[in-house]
């Protein structure tokens, strides 16, 4: 035991190893988080769709009871036996309720494993590669869609930093000084996947889908980039962790209710920030290829768009890539405009102070057992709370994404292009000038 502790101490005491190990741990956490969110957003998508369209949605996916018989259970009707065991008569309301919940047929999970069932279905489907495609690009295209959003997520801060006895851990995988640009650059690269898929499929509808995707993504990238310049002027940094830290101390971009956020300047700046928010969110929808901007794959005029010729896991890669892009987009929106991991109302500053004070009392000689334990854990508790705040916001924004999808009808393609180049572009440029004027004249 002592040997393991010594080993751990010597490895973690070395700054290089400490840095490598914490980075890999954060990397794994971020990756798992994103993939779990893909699964979760598929479930949210299908349940909310059902809810909005006044139907149950996938609420039946459970573990069927007859699987138990497969694994050696001799029992034909387990529910009946259980009811008898507890002495519940077969025609009482409890028995009826259990039957209504389908307990006699399955172990209900309320459709929670529906995404798993979807995934299994896609896995088991036949993998078809048509003979007329350009093979190399056809295979590479799904990777270009799934890879870039996963790379882009590396700079998203999911919590603040924590001080351990070996050094500080910053809770984002790569704390780059150009975080915002990093996300833009890499989410922009997924356009290659759509274009190549359309071209390599060597058939009509995928090609049109690919062209549409290229035009749309490039146009909205411009609007997206211009729309957040006012924000960057206000924070005067490109580092996402610093932006969130600033929001935690001085009020979220859209909710300046504490700290320096109560100054006149910040309240006047709310106008350009709201304009930025509208343009940015709309552009994120367009970048994620979601309704009302799903021009690249609208099934009414393009069969399936760029992925018409794809099947099985290659199709699933496109599907997942789209959902990862959606999750990363939502995370970027909440990071820039809604405080990221910040709990809000100045609670972050209080919590940080509390953690610091607890650490000091904990390291004191006179500290009781509880105080010293608290001193060790305080930083982690704060980080965990902030992480929960981040997840809650993320789920809320993913819900919003789905809500919009099932509420708004699809635009026409010329309307999409007009919206970007004739409306958003101009408004975003004017917005930059407006922000500059406010920052200069109102101190």
């Amino acid at each position, binding site marked *: 035991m002592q040997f393991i502790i010594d080993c751990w101490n010597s490895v973690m005491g070395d700054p290089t190893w400490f840095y490598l190990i914490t980075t890999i741990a954060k990397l794994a956490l971020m990756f798992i988080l994103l993939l779990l969110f893909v699964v979760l957003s598929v479930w949210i998508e299908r349940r909310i769709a059902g809810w909005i369209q006044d139907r149950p949605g996938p609420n039946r996916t459970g573990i069927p009871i007859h699987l138990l018989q497969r694994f050696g259970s001799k029992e034909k009707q387990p529910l009946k036996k259980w009811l008898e065991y507890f002495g519940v008569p077969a025609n009482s309301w409890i028995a009826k309720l259990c039957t209504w919940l389908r307990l006699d047929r399955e172990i209900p999970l309320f459709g929670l494993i529906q995404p798993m069932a979807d995934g299994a279905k896609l896995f088991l489907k036949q993998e078809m590669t048509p003979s007329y495609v350009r093979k190399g690009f056809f295979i590479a295209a799904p990777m270009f869609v799934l890879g870039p959003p996963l790379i882009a997520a590396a700079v998203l801060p999911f919590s603040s930093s924590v001080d351990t006895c070996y050094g500080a851990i910053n809770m984002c995988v790569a704390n780059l*000084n150009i975080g915002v640009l990093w996300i833009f650059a890499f989410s*922009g690269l997924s356009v290659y996947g759509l274009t190549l898929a359309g071209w390599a499929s060597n058939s009509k509808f995928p090609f049109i889908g690919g062209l549409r995707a290229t035009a749309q993504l490039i146009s909205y990238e411009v609007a997206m980039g211009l729309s957040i310049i006012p924000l960057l002027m206000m924070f005067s940094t490109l580092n996402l962790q610093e932006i969130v830290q600033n929001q935690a101390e001085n009020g979220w971009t859209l909710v300046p209710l504490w700290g320096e956020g109560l100054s006149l300047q910040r309240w006047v700046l709310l106008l350009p920030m709201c304009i930025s928010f509208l343009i940015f969110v709309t552009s994120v929808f367009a970048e994620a290829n979601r309704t009302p901007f799903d021009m690249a794959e609208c099934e009414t005029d393009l069969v399936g768009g760029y992925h018409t010729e794809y099947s099985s896991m290659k199709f699933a890669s496109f599907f997942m890539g789209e959902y990862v892009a959606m999750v990363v987009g939502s995370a970027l929106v909440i990071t820039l405009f809604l405080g990221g991991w910040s709990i809000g109302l100045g609670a972050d500053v209080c919590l940080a102070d509390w953690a610091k004070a607890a650490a000091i009392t904990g390291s004191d000689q006179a500290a009781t057992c509880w105080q010293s334990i608290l001193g060790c854990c305080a930083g982690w508790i704060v980080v965990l709370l902030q992480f929960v705040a981040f997840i809650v916001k993320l789920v809320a924004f993913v819900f919003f994404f789905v809500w919009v999808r099932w509420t708004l009808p699809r635009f026409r393609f010329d309307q999409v292009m007009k919206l970007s180049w004739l409306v958003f572009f101009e408004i975003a440029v004017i917005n930059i000038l407006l922000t500059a004027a406010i920052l200069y004249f109102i101190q």
Partner: protein
Amino acid sequence: MDLPISQILFYLFALAALVSAFGVVAFRNPVSSAMCMAACFGFVAAIFFGLGAEFLGIVQIMVYAGAVLVLFLFVVMMLDVKKEEKLVVSLPAALVGTCIAAVFAGMITNVSLSLPGATDCCPMAAACETPANVQSNTTPNPSKFGGPLAAPKSGERSDTHILGEMIFTKYNIPFAILSFALLSACVGTVAISRKLRQD
């Protein structure tokens, strides 16, 4: 042999960039060439990152790989090259091409050799704080990784800051002139490509 990781990465990325740049010329299929070019941009961006010029690196990916090259690809796909053309080599053309390439290569070599830190070790290691040969007997330090792997140092100005200040103070007038040149080129392109109405 004690090779710091930055040096290994530099040679790796440089080699990859050269190979993909060669691919641009070697492939007969225009889409393959375009994708090779994208890869080349990516590797050059990686070298920028290693040199600590994060802003330049990311702009390289964002503007060149993310926008300019996608437009290239767009056009190349629209062309629909049915028969990929056979390579025809004529001697005078090859000679002139070689001469121009040699002059250009000489110029670049000359410029890069006159840069600070160009000859003593590889540039990515030089960009890190301490030289590679000192590091072997001291405790290894995360800043040895350089670039994106390095722990951010507090209080140091980012290269975005430095670049912005340079452009908007010292080189403000050339920058403005260049912007106007680009703007006029844009307007000119639109004016040329637009068909005049016949009424």
